[in-house]
Protein backbone atom coordinates (compact mmCIF):
# COMPACT_ATOMS: atom_id res chain seq x y z
CA UNK A 1 0.00 0.00 0.00
CA UNK A 2 1.41 3.38 -0.96
CA UNK A 3 1.93 6.13 1.61
CA UNK A 4 -0.69 8.32 -0.03
CA UNK A 5 -3.29 5.53 0.19
CA UNK A 6 -2.52 5.14 3.89
CA UNK A 7 -2.94 8.86 4.41
CA UNK A 8 -6.31 8.78 2.74
CA UNK A 9 -7.40 5.89 4.96
CA UNK A 10 -6.14 7.60 8.10
CA UNK A 11 -7.74 10.92 7.26
CA UNK A 12 -10.86 11.39 9.39
CA UNK A 13 -13.81 11.17 7.08
CA UNK A 14 -17.07 12.81 8.00
CA UNK A 15 -19.86 10.65 9.34
CA UNK A 16 -22.85 10.39 7.02
CA UNK A 17 -25.20 13.35 7.41
CA UNK A 18 -28.88 12.32 7.31
CA UNK A 19 -30.49 13.11 3.97
CA UNK A 20 -34.17 13.56 4.85
CA UNK A 21 -36.89 12.08 2.67
CA UNK A 22 -39.67 14.65 2.07
CA UNK A 23 -41.84 13.07 4.81
CA UNK A 24 -39.01 13.31 7.40
CA UNK A 25 -38.21 17.00 7.02
CA UNK A 26 -40.30 18.12 10.05
CA UNK A 27 -38.54 15.51 12.26
CA UNK A 28 -35.10 16.89 11.37
CA UNK A 29 -36.27 20.52 11.65
CA UNK A 30 -37.43 19.78 15.22
CA UNK A 31 -34.20 17.90 16.01
CA UNK A 32 -32.25 20.98 14.94
CA UNK A 33 -34.04 22.80 17.82
CA UNK A 34 -33.27 19.82 20.14
CA UNK A 35 -36.86 18.66 20.19
CA UNK A 36 -37.98 15.11 19.50
CA UNK A 37 -41.14 15.24 17.40
CA UNK A 38 -42.81 12.34 15.59
CA UNK A 39 -46.07 11.94 13.67
CA UNK A 40 -49.32 11.38 15.61
CA UNK A 41 -52.62 10.55 13.96
CA UNK A 42 -55.45 13.05 14.50
CA UNK A 43 -58.00 10.28 13.82
CA UNK A 44 -56.84 7.44 16.10
CA UNK A 45 -54.38 9.31 18.32
CA UNK A 46 -51.49 6.86 17.84
CA UNK A 47 -47.88 7.80 17.13
CA UNK A 48 -45.64 6.25 14.52
CA UNK A 49 -42.05 6.26 13.32
CA UNK A 50 -40.30 6.52 10.89
CA UNK A 51 -42.39 9.32 9.36
CA UNK A 52 -44.80 8.67 6.50
CA UNK A 53 -47.79 10.63 5.28
CA UNK A 54 -50.57 8.25 6.29
CA UNK A 55 -51.13 6.59 9.68
CA UNK A 56 -49.96 2.94 9.58
CA UNK A 57 -52.50 2.14 12.34
CA UNK A 58 -55.68 3.42 10.60
CA UNK A 59 -54.46 4.86 7.26
CA UNK A 60 -55.87 8.32 8.01
CA UNK A 61 -53.89 11.11 6.36
CA UNK A 62 -54.76 13.72 9.02
CA UNK A 63 -51.74 13.92 11.32
CA UNK A 64 -49.27 16.27 12.93
CA UNK A 65 -45.70 16.13 14.18
CA UNK A 66 -45.96 16.42 17.99
CA UNK A 67 -43.33 16.58 20.75
CA UNK A 68 -42.77 13.32 22.65
CA UNK A 69 -41.24 12.76 26.09
CA UNK A 70 -37.86 11.58 24.82
CA UNK A 71 -37.99 8.77 27.39
CA UNK A 72 -37.97 5.11 26.50
CA UNK A 73 -36.22 1.80 27.00
CA UNK A 74 -33.78 -0.32 25.06
CA UNK A 75 -35.74 -2.99 23.16
CA UNK A 76 -32.57 -4.54 21.73
CA UNK A 77 -29.06 -3.45 20.80
CA UNK A 78 -25.86 -4.46 19.00
CA UNK A 79 -22.22 -3.48 19.41
CA UNK A 80 -20.21 -2.64 16.30
CA UNK A 81 -16.64 -3.91 16.38
CA UNK A 82 -16.13 -3.97 12.64
CA UNK A 83 -15.53 -0.66 10.87
CA UNK A 84 -18.02 -0.35 7.99
CA UNK A 85 -17.32 3.34 7.35
CA UNK A 86 -13.97 5.10 7.90
CA UNK A 87 -15.56 7.86 10.01
CA UNK A 88 -16.43 5.27 12.65
CA UNK A 89 -12.90 3.82 12.91
CA UNK A 90 -12.23 5.72 16.12
CA UNK A 91 -15.68 4.98 17.56
CA UNK A 92 -15.61 1.16 17.74
CA UNK A 93 -16.86 -0.51 19.82
CA UNK A 94 -20.09 1.52 19.73
CA UNK A 95 -23.69 0.62 20.47
CA UNK A 96 -26.62 0.92 18.07
CA UNK A 97 -29.89 0.38 19.91
CA UNK A 98 -33.55 0.03 19.07
CA UNK A 99 -35.20 2.36 21.58
CA UNK A 100 -38.89 1.87 22.35
CA UNK A 101 -40.31 5.29 23.13
CA UNK A 102 -42.87 5.73 25.93
CA UNK A 103 -45.37 6.67 23.21
CA UNK A 104 -44.89 3.26 21.51
CA UNK A 105 -42.83 3.62 18.35
CA UNK A 106 -39.32 2.18 18.16
CA UNK A 107 -36.41 4.27 16.93
CA UNK A 108 -32.88 3.29 15.92
CA UNK A 109 -30.17 5.34 17.64
CA UNK A 110 -26.89 5.24 19.54
CA UNK A 111 -26.53 4.76 23.28
CA UNK A 112 -24.05 7.32 24.60
CA UNK A 113 -22.77 7.87 28.13
CA UNK A 114 -22.59 4.13 28.89
CA UNK A 115 -19.96 1.51 28.16
CA UNK A 116 -21.18 -1.13 25.67
CA UNK A 117 -20.85 -3.86 28.31
CA UNK A 118 -23.26 -1.96 30.59
CA UNK A 119 -26.06 -1.68 28.04
CA UNK A 120 -28.93 -4.19 28.57
CA UNK A 121 -32.37 -4.79 27.12
CA UNK A 122 -35.16 -2.90 28.93
CA UNK A 123 -32.69 -0.30 30.24
CA UNK A 124 -34.43 3.12 30.66
CA UNK A 125 -32.97 5.85 28.44
CA UNK A 126 -33.64 9.49 27.58
CA UNK A 127 -32.92 11.54 24.49
CA UNK A 128 -29.93 13.86 24.04
CA UNK A 129 -29.00 15.75 20.88
CA UNK A 130 -25.69 15.55 19.06
CA UNK A 131 -24.96 18.60 16.88
CA UNK A 132 -23.15 16.79 14.10
CA UNK A 133 -22.91 19.63 11.56
CA UNK A 134 -24.05 23.21 11.03
CA UNK A 135 -27.84 23.05 11.37
CA UNK A 136 -27.98 19.26 11.82
CA UNK A 137 -28.67 17.55 15.16
CA UNK A 138 -29.07 13.82 15.63
CA UNK A 139 -31.12 12.43 18.55
CA UNK A 140 -29.23 9.89 20.63
CA UNK A 141 -30.03 8.26 23.96
CA UNK A 142 -28.26 8.01 27.32
CA UNK A 143 -29.12 6.05 30.47
CA UNK A 144 -32.07 7.71 32.28
Amino acid sequence: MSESTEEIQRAPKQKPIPQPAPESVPFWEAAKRHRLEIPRCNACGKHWFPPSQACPHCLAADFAFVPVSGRGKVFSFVTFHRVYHPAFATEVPYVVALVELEEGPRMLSNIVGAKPENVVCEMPVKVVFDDVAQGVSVPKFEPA
Partner: protein
Amino acid sequence: MIEPSRELRDACAIVGAGNSRLGRVPGVSSLDLLVEAMRNAIAESGLKVSDIDGIVCRGPDDIYGHHQQIGARLGINARFSTSLDNGGASQILAVAIASMAIRAGLATTVICGYGRDSWSRTHSSEEKRVLNQTTPDDQLPKEFAPEYGYFGAVAAHAFGATRHMHLYGTTRDQFGDIAVAFREHALRNPDAQMKKPLNKTQYHEAKEVVAPFGLFDCSLRSDGAGAVIVTSRERAKDLKQPPVLIKGFGSFNNLRGWFNDDNMVVTAAKQSGETAYKMAGVGPDDVDTAQIYDCFTYMVLTQLEDYGFCKKGEGGAFVSSGALRMGGRLPTNTSGGQLSEAHVEGMLQVVEGVRQMRHTYPAERQVEDAEIALVSGHGGNQVCHSTLILGKA
Protein backbone atom coordinates in the same frame (compact mmCIF):
# COMPACT_ATOMS: atom_id res chain seq x y z
CA MET B 1 -55.63 -19.15 9.16
CA ILE B 2 -56.50 -19.81 5.55
CA GLU B 3 -56.54 -23.31 4.09
CA PRO B 4 -53.93 -23.91 1.40
CA SER B 5 -55.05 -25.95 -1.60
CA ARG B 6 -54.47 -29.69 -1.16
CA GLU B 7 -54.51 -30.05 -4.95
CA LEU B 8 -50.95 -28.86 -5.08
CA ARG B 9 -49.75 -31.61 -2.72
CA ASP B 10 -47.56 -34.02 -4.72
CA ALA B 11 -48.80 -32.46 -7.98
CA CYS B 12 -45.34 -31.45 -9.17
CA ALA B 13 -41.82 -32.78 -8.83
CA ILE B 14 -38.26 -31.59 -9.09
CA VAL B 15 -36.47 -33.49 -11.86
CA GLY B 16 -33.16 -31.68 -12.11
CA ALA B 17 -30.88 -29.91 -9.65
CA GLY B 18 -27.49 -28.34 -10.17
CA ASN B 19 -24.95 -25.95 -8.83
CA SER B 20 -22.15 -23.95 -10.39
CA ARG B 21 -18.60 -23.71 -9.10
CA LEU B 22 -18.85 -22.16 -5.63
CA GLY B 23 -16.81 -19.77 -3.53
CA ARG B 24 -14.27 -17.67 -5.38
CA VAL B 25 -14.98 -17.74 -9.10
CA PRO B 26 -13.43 -14.55 -10.44
CA GLY B 27 -14.10 -13.47 -14.00
CA VAL B 28 -17.56 -15.03 -14.26
CA SER B 29 -20.70 -12.89 -14.03
CA SER B 30 -23.62 -13.85 -11.80
CA LEU B 31 -25.67 -14.51 -14.95
CA ASP B 32 -23.11 -16.95 -16.33
CA LEU B 33 -22.79 -18.67 -12.95
CA LEU B 34 -26.55 -19.22 -13.02
CA VAL B 35 -26.42 -20.52 -16.58
CA GLU B 36 -23.66 -22.93 -15.43
CA ALA B 37 -25.94 -24.26 -12.66
CA MET B 38 -28.89 -24.46 -15.07
CA ARG B 39 -26.83 -26.38 -17.65
CA ASN B 40 -25.92 -28.90 -14.93
CA ALA B 41 -29.55 -29.24 -13.85
CA ILE B 42 -30.76 -29.69 -17.45
CA ALA B 43 -28.01 -32.22 -18.25
CA GLU B 44 -28.75 -34.49 -15.29
CA SER B 45 -32.52 -34.34 -15.86
CA GLY B 46 -32.38 -35.80 -19.35
CA LEU B 47 -34.43 -32.87 -20.67
CA LYS B 48 -33.44 -30.73 -23.64
CA VAL B 49 -33.28 -26.98 -23.12
CA SER B 50 -36.11 -26.67 -25.66
CA ASP B 51 -38.34 -28.69 -23.28
CA ILE B 52 -38.20 -25.80 -20.81
CA ASP B 53 -41.05 -23.33 -21.23
CA GLY B 54 -40.86 -21.40 -17.96
CA ILE B 55 -38.24 -19.42 -16.01
CA VAL B 56 -38.56 -18.01 -12.48
CA CYS B 57 -35.25 -16.69 -11.25
CA ARG B 58 -33.33 -14.00 -9.48
CA GLY B 59 -29.86 -12.52 -9.13
CA PRO B 60 -28.24 -9.49 -7.57
CA ASP B 61 -30.80 -6.69 -7.04
CA ASP B 62 -29.17 -4.35 -9.55
CA ILE B 63 -29.84 -6.63 -12.53
CA TYR B 64 -32.96 -5.39 -14.27
CA GLY B 65 -35.16 -7.87 -16.10
CA HIS B 66 -33.20 -10.82 -14.76
CA HIS B 67 -35.38 -13.58 -16.26
CA GLN B 68 -35.18 -11.91 -19.68
CA GLN B 69 -31.40 -12.00 -19.60
CA ILE B 70 -31.39 -15.65 -18.51
CA GLY B 71 -33.84 -16.58 -21.28
CA ALA B 72 -31.59 -14.91 -23.83
CA ARG B 73 -28.58 -16.87 -22.58
CA LEU B 74 -30.50 -20.17 -22.57
CA GLY B 75 -31.74 -19.31 -26.06
CA ILE B 76 -35.40 -19.96 -25.29
CA ASN B 77 -38.73 -18.20 -25.29
CA ALA B 78 -40.97 -18.91 -22.31
CA ARG B 79 -44.69 -19.34 -21.86
CA PHE B 80 -44.23 -18.12 -18.29
CA SER B 81 -41.30 -16.16 -16.88
CA THR B 82 -40.56 -13.58 -14.22
CA SER B 83 -37.90 -12.59 -11.69
CA LEU B 84 -38.61 -12.17 -7.98
CA ASP B 85 -37.99 -9.56 -5.28
CA ASN B 86 -38.34 -11.30 -1.90
CA GLY B 87 -34.64 -11.52 -1.09
CA GLY B 88 -33.56 -14.90 0.25
CA ALA B 89 -37.19 -16.00 0.38
CA SER B 90 -37.41 -15.72 -3.43
CA GLN B 91 -35.76 -19.01 -4.29
CA ILE B 92 -38.41 -21.24 -2.69
CA LEU B 93 -41.10 -18.84 -3.86
CA ALA B 94 -39.80 -19.50 -7.40
CA VAL B 95 -40.47 -23.23 -6.97
CA ALA B 96 -43.92 -22.46 -5.52
CA ILE B 97 -44.80 -20.14 -8.41
CA ALA B 98 -43.48 -22.70 -10.90
CA SER B 99 -45.76 -25.36 -9.38
CA MET B 100 -48.76 -23.03 -9.54
CA ALA B 101 -47.99 -22.06 -13.14
CA ILE B 102 -47.72 -25.71 -14.16
CA ARG B 103 -50.94 -26.59 -12.33
CA ALA B 104 -52.69 -23.64 -14.01
CA GLY B 105 -51.58 -24.86 -17.42
CA LEU B 106 -49.41 -21.83 -18.11
CA ALA B 107 -46.23 -23.89 -18.53
CA THR B 108 -45.11 -27.52 -18.42
CA THR B 109 -41.48 -27.38 -17.29
CA VAL B 110 -40.07 -24.47 -15.33
CA ILE B 111 -36.45 -23.82 -14.44
CA CYS B 112 -35.78 -21.88 -11.22
CA GLY B 113 -32.51 -20.53 -9.93
CA TYR B 114 -30.41 -17.88 -8.33
CA GLY B 115 -26.85 -16.75 -9.00
CA ARG B 116 -24.59 -14.20 -7.39
CA ASP B 117 -21.03 -12.90 -7.60
CA SER B 118 -20.75 -11.50 -4.08
CA TRP B 119 -17.18 -12.58 -3.44
CA SER B 120 -15.96 -11.00 -6.66
CA ARG B 121 -18.01 -7.83 -6.08
CA THR B 122 -16.70 -7.30 -2.57
CA HIS B 123 -13.09 -8.06 -3.48
CA SER B 124 -12.72 -6.07 -6.69
CA SER B 125 -10.89 -3.29 -4.80
CA GLU B 126 -9.56 -2.54 -1.31
CA GLU B 127 -12.38 -0.06 -0.66
CA LYS B 128 -15.05 -2.59 -1.66
CA ARG B 129 -13.40 -5.21 0.55
CA VAL B 130 -13.59 -2.89 3.57
CA LEU B 131 -17.21 -1.89 2.91
CA ASN B 132 -18.20 -5.47 1.98
CA GLN B 133 -21.42 -4.03 0.64
CA THR B 134 -23.35 -5.74 -2.16
CA THR B 135 -26.41 -3.47 -2.07
CA PRO B 136 -26.28 -0.77 -4.76
CA ASP B 137 -25.40 2.62 -3.21
CA ASP B 138 -28.58 4.34 -4.28
CA GLN B 139 -30.67 1.70 -2.47
CA LEU B 140 -28.94 2.13 0.90
CA PRO B 141 -30.76 4.06 3.66
CA LYS B 142 -30.00 7.78 3.70
CA GLU B 143 -31.43 8.57 7.17
CA PHE B 144 -32.29 6.76 10.43
CA ALA B 145 -29.34 4.39 9.96
CA PRO B 146 -25.99 5.62 8.53
CA GLU B 147 -25.71 8.62 10.86
CA TYR B 148 -25.67 6.12 13.75
CA GLY B 149 -23.04 3.92 12.13
CA TYR B 150 -25.71 1.31 11.45
CA PHE B 151 -24.77 -0.65 8.34
CA GLY B 152 -25.31 -4.11 6.95
CA ALA B 153 -27.20 -7.36 7.45
CA VAL B 154 -24.99 -8.61 10.30
CA ALA B 155 -26.24 -5.88 12.65
CA ALA B 156 -29.88 -6.27 11.61
CA HIS B 157 -29.90 -9.96 12.50
CA ALA B 158 -27.75 -9.38 15.61
CA PHE B 159 -30.63 -7.31 17.04
CA GLY B 160 -32.76 -10.47 17.01
CA ALA B 161 -30.00 -12.49 18.65
CA THR B 162 -29.64 -9.97 21.51
CA ARG B 163 -33.39 -9.93 22.12
CA HIS B 164 -33.63 -13.74 22.05
CA MET B 165 -30.72 -14.01 24.50
CA HIS B 166 -32.46 -11.50 26.78
CA LEU B 167 -35.86 -13.25 26.69
CA TYR B 168 -34.75 -16.89 26.84
CA GLY B 169 -31.20 -17.01 28.16
CA THR B 170 -29.86 -18.24 24.81
CA THR B 171 -26.04 -18.16 24.69
CA ARG B 172 -23.31 -17.57 22.14
CA ASP B 173 -22.01 -21.03 22.97
CA GLN B 174 -25.26 -22.42 21.56
CA PHE B 175 -24.82 -20.35 18.38
CA GLY B 176 -21.38 -21.95 18.21
CA ASP B 177 -22.89 -25.44 18.16
CA ILE B 178 -24.71 -24.49 14.94
CA ALA B 179 -21.55 -23.18 13.26
CA VAL B 180 -19.54 -26.26 14.26
CA ALA B 181 -22.23 -28.74 13.10
CA PHE B 182 -22.53 -27.13 9.66
CA ARG B 183 -18.75 -27.02 9.24
CA GLU B 184 -18.63 -30.77 9.87
CA HIS B 185 -21.16 -31.23 7.07
CA ALA B 186 -19.19 -28.97 4.71
CA LEU B 187 -16.07 -31.12 5.15
CA ARG B 188 -18.01 -34.01 3.53
CA ASN B 189 -18.94 -31.81 0.55
CA PRO B 190 -16.16 -31.42 -2.03
CA ASP B 191 -17.83 -28.32 -3.54
CA ALA B 192 -17.91 -26.44 -0.20
CA GLN B 193 -16.00 -23.18 0.18
CA MET B 194 -14.74 -23.99 3.70
CA LYS B 195 -12.25 -26.83 3.88
CA LYS B 196 -10.86 -26.65 7.43
CA PRO B 197 -12.44 -28.05 10.62
CA LEU B 198 -13.91 -25.61 13.14
CA ASN B 199 -14.13 -26.21 16.89
CA LYS B 200 -15.82 -24.29 19.69
CA THR B 201 -12.55 -22.75 20.92
CA GLN B 202 -11.89 -21.28 17.49
CA TYR B 203 -15.50 -20.11 17.35
CA HIS B 204 -15.18 -18.21 20.64
CA GLU B 205 -11.73 -16.79 19.84
CA ALA B 206 -12.70 -15.39 16.43
CA LYS B 207 -12.95 -11.64 16.03
CA GLU B 208 -16.20 -9.94 16.90
CA VAL B 209 -18.05 -8.38 13.98
CA VAL B 210 -21.25 -6.89 15.36
CA ALA B 211 -21.82 -8.35 18.82
CA PRO B 212 -23.33 -10.70 19.71
CA PHE B 213 -22.08 -12.03 16.33
CA GLY B 214 -18.47 -12.98 15.71
CA LEU B 215 -16.88 -14.11 12.47
CA PHE B 216 -18.26 -17.68 12.50
CA ASP B 217 -21.83 -16.55 13.18
CA CYS B 218 -21.82 -14.95 9.74
CA SER B 219 -22.42 -16.64 6.40
CA LEU B 220 -19.89 -16.53 3.59
CA ARG B 221 -19.29 -14.11 0.75
CA SER B 222 -19.64 -16.35 -2.28
CA ASP B 223 -19.73 -16.48 -6.01
CA GLY B 224 -22.09 -19.24 -7.08
CA ALA B 225 -25.46 -20.38 -8.31
CA GLY B 226 -28.02 -23.14 -7.98
CA ALA B 227 -30.91 -24.27 -10.15
CA VAL B 228 -33.77 -26.76 -10.11
CA ILE B 229 -36.32 -27.89 -12.72
CA VAL B 230 -39.99 -28.33 -11.84
CA THR B 231 -42.51 -30.29 -13.87
CA SER B 232 -45.71 -32.26 -13.32
CA ARG B 233 -45.55 -35.51 -11.38
CA GLU B 234 -46.74 -37.43 -14.46
CA ARG B 235 -44.07 -35.98 -16.72
CA ALA B 236 -41.41 -36.60 -14.07
CA LYS B 237 -41.89 -40.38 -14.27
CA ASP B 238 -40.11 -40.74 -17.62
CA LEU B 239 -37.03 -38.67 -16.80
CA LYS B 240 -33.53 -39.65 -15.76
CA GLN B 241 -33.44 -38.79 -12.03
CA PRO B 242 -35.54 -40.21 -9.21
CA PRO B 243 -38.26 -37.54 -9.02
CA VAL B 244 -38.59 -35.58 -5.78
CA LEU B 245 -42.14 -34.63 -4.87
CA ILE B 246 -43.17 -31.09 -3.99
CA LYS B 247 -45.45 -31.93 -1.07
CA GLY B 248 -46.21 -28.42 0.08
CA PHE B 249 -45.08 -24.84 0.29
CA GLY B 250 -45.91 -21.69 2.19
CA SER B 251 -45.04 -18.04 2.42
CA PHE B 252 -45.42 -15.25 4.94
CA ASN B 253 -44.06 -11.74 5.05
CA ASN B 254 -43.84 -9.62 8.21
CA LEU B 255 -44.06 -6.42 6.22
CA ARG B 256 -44.69 -4.28 9.31
CA GLY B 257 -40.96 -4.67 9.78
CA TRP B 258 -38.23 -6.60 11.55
CA PHE B 259 -38.12 -3.90 14.25
CA ASN B 260 -41.90 -4.06 14.80
CA ASP B 261 -43.96 -6.36 17.02
CA ASP B 262 -42.01 -9.51 18.04
CA ASN B 263 -40.79 -10.19 14.51
CA MET B 264 -37.09 -10.42 15.40
CA VAL B 265 -37.74 -13.36 17.77
CA VAL B 266 -40.83 -14.96 16.18
CA THR B 267 -40.14 -14.88 12.47
CA ALA B 268 -42.44 -15.28 9.47
CA ALA B 269 -41.23 -18.91 9.37
CA LYS B 270 -44.06 -19.62 11.83
CA GLN B 271 -46.98 -18.81 9.53
CA SER B 272 -45.11 -19.86 6.38
CA GLY B 273 -44.38 -23.23 7.99
CA GLU B 274 -47.96 -23.75 9.20
CA THR B 275 -49.20 -23.20 5.63
CA ALA B 276 -46.63 -25.58 4.14
CA TYR B 277 -47.31 -28.28 6.74
CA LYS B 278 -51.04 -28.09 5.99
CA MET B 279 -50.55 -28.32 2.26
CA ALA B 280 -48.17 -31.25 2.67
CA GLY B 281 -50.25 -33.00 5.33
CA VAL B 282 -47.24 -33.40 7.63
CA GLY B 283 -45.96 -31.84 10.84
CA PRO B 284 -42.55 -31.15 12.35
CA ASP B 285 -42.29 -34.70 13.76
CA ASP B 286 -42.47 -36.09 10.21
CA VAL B 287 -39.50 -34.04 8.98
CA ASP B 288 -36.28 -36.07 8.64
CA THR B 289 -33.89 -33.35 7.49
CA ALA B 290 -34.04 -29.55 7.40
CA GLN B 291 -32.22 -27.13 5.13
CA ILE B 292 -32.59 -23.81 6.96
CA TYR B 293 -31.68 -20.36 5.63
CA ASP B 294 -28.56 -19.76 7.71
CA CYS B 295 -27.44 -16.24 6.92
CA PHE B 296 -26.45 -16.12 10.62
CA THR B 297 -26.31 -18.80 13.32
CA TYR B 298 -29.13 -17.21 15.34
CA MET B 299 -31.49 -17.36 12.37
CA VAL B 300 -31.23 -21.16 12.36
CA LEU B 301 -32.07 -21.34 16.07
CA THR B 302 -35.14 -19.12 15.88
CA GLN B 303 -36.47 -20.73 12.69
CA LEU B 304 -36.18 -24.21 14.24
CA GLU B 305 -38.43 -22.93 17.04
CA ASP B 306 -40.82 -21.22 14.61
CA TYR B 307 -41.14 -24.45 12.59
CA GLY B 308 -42.10 -26.32 15.75
CA PHE B 309 -39.04 -28.60 16.07
CA CYS B 310 -38.89 -27.35 19.67
CA LYS B 311 -40.76 -24.76 21.72
CA LYS B 312 -40.04 -21.03 21.46
CA GLY B 313 -37.12 -20.31 23.74
CA GLU B 314 -35.80 -23.89 23.70
CA GLY B 315 -33.82 -23.58 20.47
CA GLY B 316 -30.55 -23.20 22.35
CA ALA B 317 -30.96 -26.52 24.16
CA PHE B 318 -32.16 -28.16 20.92
CA VAL B 319 -29.09 -27.20 18.87
CA SER B 320 -26.74 -28.07 21.74
CA SER B 321 -28.22 -31.58 21.99
CA GLY B 322 -26.47 -32.54 18.75
CA ALA B 323 -29.82 -32.68 16.90
CA LEU B 324 -28.47 -30.88 13.82
CA ARG B 325 -25.59 -33.28 13.14
CA MET B 326 -25.66 -36.30 10.82
CA GLY B 327 -27.25 -39.06 12.91
CA GLY B 328 -29.02 -36.50 15.13
CA ARG B 329 -32.77 -35.97 15.52
CA LEU B 330 -32.84 -33.46 12.61
CA PRO B 331 -29.71 -33.39 10.44
CA THR B 332 -29.70 -29.80 9.22
CA ASN B 333 -27.86 -28.00 6.43
CA THR B 334 -26.25 -31.25 5.42
CA SER B 335 -24.22 -29.63 2.61
CA GLY B 336 -22.65 -27.14 5.03
CA GLY B 337 -25.18 -24.37 4.56
CA GLN B 338 -24.45 -20.74 3.89
CA LEU B 339 -22.17 -20.67 6.91
CA SER B 340 -19.75 -23.23 5.43
CA GLU B 341 -20.73 -24.42 1.91
CA ALA B 342 -21.47 -21.14 0.09
CA HIS B 343 -23.98 -18.31 0.40
CA VAL B 344 -26.23 -18.41 -2.63
CA GLU B 345 -29.33 -16.88 -0.97
CA GLY B 346 -30.97 -20.16 -0.07
CA MET B 347 -30.84 -21.74 -3.52
CA LEU B 348 -28.31 -24.37 -2.49
CA GLN B 349 -30.62 -25.36 0.37
CA VAL B 350 -33.28 -26.24 -2.22
CA VAL B 351 -30.70 -28.20 -4.23
CA GLU B 352 -29.53 -30.08 -1.12
CA GLY B 353 -33.12 -30.89 -0.07
CA VAL B 354 -33.66 -32.45 -3.51
CA ARG B 355 -30.44 -34.48 -3.35
CA GLN B 356 -31.27 -35.83 0.12
CA MET B 357 -34.68 -36.99 -1.14
CA ARG B 358 -33.10 -38.89 -4.05
CA HIS B 359 -30.95 -41.12 -1.83
CA THR B 360 -28.09 -41.14 -4.32
CA TYR B 361 -25.46 -39.71 -1.94
CA PRO B 362 -22.65 -41.82 -0.48
CA ALA B 363 -23.54 -43.00 3.05
CA GLU B 364 -21.50 -40.33 4.85
CA ARG B 365 -23.59 -37.55 3.25
CA GLN B 366 -26.99 -39.26 3.22
CA VAL B 367 -29.55 -38.72 5.99
CA GLU B 368 -30.54 -42.31 6.61
CA ASP B 369 -34.14 -43.30 5.76
CA ALA B 370 -35.06 -39.66 5.09
CA GLU B 371 -38.47 -39.29 3.45
CA ILE B 372 -39.39 -35.68 4.18
CA ALA B 373 -37.16 -32.60 3.86
CA LEU B 374 -38.10 -29.07 4.95
CA VAL B 375 -36.35 -26.16 3.24
CA SER B 376 -36.61 -22.55 4.40
CA GLY B 377 -35.95 -19.22 2.74
CA HIS B 378 -35.63 -15.93 4.61
CA GLY B 379 -34.80 -12.49 3.35
CA GLY B 380 -35.77 -9.11 2.05
CA ASN B 381 -35.25 -6.80 5.00
CA GLN B 382 -35.44 -9.82 7.33
CA VAL B 383 -39.22 -10.07 6.91
CA CYS B 384 -39.94 -12.30 3.91
CA HIS B 385 -40.15 -16.05 4.37
CA SER B 386 -40.97 -19.10 2.29
CA THR B 387 -41.07 -22.83 3.04
CA LEU B 388 -40.78 -25.87 0.81
CA ILE B 389 -41.56 -29.44 1.88
CA LEU B 390 -40.09 -32.13 -0.34
CA GLY B 391 -40.73 -35.85 -0.27
CA LYS B 392 -39.10 -39.03 -1.51
CA ALA B 393 -41.19 -40.37 -4.39
